[in-house]
């Protein structure tokens, strides 16, 4: 029997990688620094993951709220965006007839463009600089498939990729509110405003796997499902001291309590920063590699506020993003390391389930920069943020319904979840950290400079809010390498 594989890190990618490897007959130990597995995970799950890990049979549920988003109208009432695009168009007609007319065509074009990304996300990022004929064939296939889109779609796709979401939406729509709520999807988790280039790509990225006309990532119970599956020795709530390396190869993992777990292969879903710069003795890293890892851009901008309620709030998902300028100004604050005084709010209702009989609303608040110009993320700062959030949703959620509040700042996310600078995506989704550049050119294929050490987290391709795609692709790479060695 081969030596066990250690998979490091919580999160959906670690779980997918661990189970993928286990399914292939490997003996897998998973070291999860977290105690609990979250009940809900956002992001696209590649169909291959669902199939291969038999997730449907194990009780995978992917939420599909309808309307998928509601947004307050300036004069009271709400704009509801439905899964049925005709119904959405109808709802939009009150705001702008031309926008309503364009909506179906917009949805169709975004669906087509997202399909290009979905195909790219189902395989490791193409290595365009390779000399390996198999890889070249792969690159050629992608090039051919892209060309087969036809002139109009190809040109529109190439033009879209570097654009700002504001420019893209200005090309299509006139309603400030519509542009605001759509634009919000382009800046999600980014230290960018809607006028920044590359946000159109981010918008498309989060559309991958969604139904046409739905521009918010779906939520599922994939982590809870996988945590219940057998086949992986999962050790929760343990802390890693270091990844052991000898003669340039991993030999195992040492925990803070001194336990040594021997392994010839280690797959880490933690960030490249934590995995390589914190856990590996830097003597094994070339300074250029250290520079490259340090230069991975990861700036947390999101705070989460959990409100427990005594009743349902009356919406499934609510966005406060009245215009692109509103988002841009919210970002301006973050630029100067201030918390947005008028933030982007994405609130999602979580119904009571099982033993937990309370209603909850999870608010994703942006922008809350990890680094603050003045002061730090202390209790009073967090309370002020909670107050801002409650005030922002006051019209949609009676204050007396709130039983308790909890705030997770980017600083908390950095400490508790190991997110670099509080950035959940580990590496911001930007054109220079995309495909073969994600997270750095030399790490883009899941392998690291340490023999037997692999990365599989959100910093890897495609990562950034997808659920399990990087885990799957990393696991496939590990198995491929292992197959070659045998």
């Amino acid at each position: 029997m081969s030596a066990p594989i250690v998979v490091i890190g919580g999160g959906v990618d670690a779980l997918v990688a661990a189970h993928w490897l286990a399914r292939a007959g490997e003996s897998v130990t998973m070291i999860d620094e977290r105690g609990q597995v979250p009940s809900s995970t956002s992001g696209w799950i590649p169909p291959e993951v669902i199939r291969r890990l038999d997730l449907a049979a194990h009780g995978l549920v992917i939420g599909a709220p309808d309307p998928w988003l509601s947004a307050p109208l300036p004069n009271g009432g709400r704009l509801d965006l439905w899964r049925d695009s005709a119904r959405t168009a109808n709802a939009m007609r009150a705001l702008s007839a031309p926008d309503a007319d364009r909506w179906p065509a917009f949805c169709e074009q975004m669906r087509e463009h997202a399909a290009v990304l979905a195909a790219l996300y189902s395989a490791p990022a193409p290595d365009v600089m390779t000399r390996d004929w198999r890889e070249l064939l792969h690159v050629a296939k992608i090039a051919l498939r892209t060309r087969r889109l036809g002139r109009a779609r190809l040109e529109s796709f190439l033009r879209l990729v570097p654009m700002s979401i504001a420019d893209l939406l200005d090309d299509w729509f006139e309603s400030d509110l519509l542009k605001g709520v759509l634009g919000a999807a382009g800046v999600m988790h980014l230290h960018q405003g809607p006028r920044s280039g590359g946000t159109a790509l981010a918008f498309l990225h989060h559309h991958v796997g969604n139904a046409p006309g739905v521009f918010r990532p779906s939520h599922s119970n994939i982590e809870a499902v996988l945590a219940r599956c057998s086949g992986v020795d999962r050790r929760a709530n343990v802390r890693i001291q270091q990844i052991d390396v000898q003669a340039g190869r991993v030999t195992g993992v040492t925990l803070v309590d001194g336990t040594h777990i021997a392994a010839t292969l280690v797959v880490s879903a933690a960030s490249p920063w934590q995995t390589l710069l914190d856990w590996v003795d830097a003597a094994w890293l070339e300074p250029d590699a250290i520079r490259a890892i340090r230069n991975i851009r990861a700036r947390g901008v999101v705070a989460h506020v959990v409100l427990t309620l005594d009743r349902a709030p009356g919406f499934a998902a609510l966005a406060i993003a009245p215009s692109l300028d509103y988002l841009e100004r919210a970002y301006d604050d973050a630029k100067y390391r201030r918390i947005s005084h008028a933030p982007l709010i994405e609130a999602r209702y979580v119904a009571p389930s099982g033993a937990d009989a309370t209603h909850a609303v999870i608010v994703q608040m942006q922008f809350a920069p990890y680094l603050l110009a003045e002061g730090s993320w202390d209790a009073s700062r967090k309370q002020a943020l909670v107050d801002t959030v409650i005030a922002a949703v006051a019209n949609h959620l009676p204050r007396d319904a709130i039983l308790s509040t909890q705030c997770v700042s980017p600083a908390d996310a950095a400490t508790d979840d190991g997110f670099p600078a509080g950035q959940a995506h580990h590496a911001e989704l930007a054109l220079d950290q995309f495909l073969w550049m994600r997270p750095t050119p030399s790490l883009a294929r899941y392998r690291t400079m340490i023999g037997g050490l692999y990365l599989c987290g959100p910093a890897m391709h495609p990562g950034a809010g997808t659920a399990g795609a990087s885990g799957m692709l990393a696991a496939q790479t590990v198995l491929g390498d292992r197959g070659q060695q045998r």
Partner: protein
Amino acid sequence: MAAPYEAIVIGGGHNGLVCAAYLARAGKRVLVLEQRDRIGGAAVSEQLFPGFTFSVFSYVVSLLRPEIIRDLELPRHGLHVLPLESTLTPLPNGDYLAQWNDHDQNRRELARHSLRDAEAYDEFGRLMHLMSRAIKPILGMPPPDPASLLPRDLMGMGRLGKYFRDLGAERFHALHKLLTMSSADYLDEWFETEALKATKSASGIIGALLGPRSPGSAYVLLHHYMGELDGVFRAWGFAKGGNGSVSTAIAAAAMSFGATIRTNAPVSQVLIKNGRAVGVVLNDGEELRAPITISGADPRRTFMQFVGAQHLPNELVDGIRRFRFRGTSAKVNLALSEAPNFTCMPGVGAHLRGAISISPSVDYLERAYDDAKYGEFSRRPYMDIILPSMIDPGMAPPGQHVMSIFAQYAPYDLKGGWTDAKRAAFGDTVIDTLSEYAPNLKTSILHRQVITPPDIERMIGLTEGNIFQGELSLQQMFFLRPIPAWARYATPIEGLYQCGAGTHPGGGVMGASGRNAALTILGKMK
């Protein structure tokens, strides 16, 4: 009878003139039509006030392709490009950051701010050198059309692919980063001195409605790094007599090859017969015919004004509507009774023979951009200043000076629109801001001229006052400039070509678009 001209060039800006000169050099009979009373477009020198000559719009020479200087023998026609010696960034705390051409002097100055940066500077310079070399062949290449199946385009794409692969992984990845990152993020990877990052990233925002933290601004950094004079890397220059001498030298070269140039000849439309361009009609109704018409105007004027949507396919009309201009740059030209005295570096010295950059920090530039995003002009603008009379004494009476201030941001779409009062207010803002660093400025101003983007549009016809004939953003570059399928200087109208900065590679007083267009046209005329 054969038409008297084989080609008509609309617009006597530097690209139109370069295009005409190359065609004439190849023996073609060429006519250039310029709407104003003088040639040059944005590269003109005018004596705005008695004794004071200004480069009214563009004011430095950096990107002018050396092959154009050589091919057209521009020095013989009066072009003399003098080096700019330094860049001085005065700081609010009374200190400064200077960048000098001399390596030792520069290193010593940088080391005063950061030893690490002084070291990184050389390595950065090496990379920029490699990157500029990597990008150079692309500038001289008509971009292949990725969606086309023509052998020409397939081979073009193949050549491009091979070219990138031959660069090697390290350089290819560095180029990828430069093309996609923000200049501030890119510089953050190298430097820690705020003023250095700000001054360098400023080149990434010139002419753009972008801040230094906007992705896509790093590429323009390289665009401005490619200044290549006499083979000296990264040297910026000043044309003796002002930037108008660039235009007059090219015009003289064109005429020496037999081209005809007419001023005061504004074109109202391109004559189209049976889907073919057969010449132009001037504002006064005069018709001029030629089998080939080439427009040096920007894409919107060329297609929407001179041609008209009715002659064009819908995709092109849509594409041109989406092509973004959004001019943001203004110019303040001052006649001064004495040289400015900078508090951080008092007196008259080498620093006044270089550029002076008001860019103390990245945040300063970002805040200037914030104002523009919401339709205001910058309350504290970015400025790039030169004193041409310090370099060429003929520009002003002895002891007196001309000052050229490039200022940003002054958005074309100002909230409430530009008025004379707003223009004056912007001029005051520029002078007030600069006076904080050079207190004697205010009292030494003899005359001033403030040019806003609408003024640029009105005076020289650049749509929305965009100095590059269209934003140099990634989605408007290369085979997307000005729109896909028509990025190789040709147009859907047979016989009509484009040669302005609105085509690849565009931007700056570069002349590459004019040259590429001429070479493309000559290829077809054979």
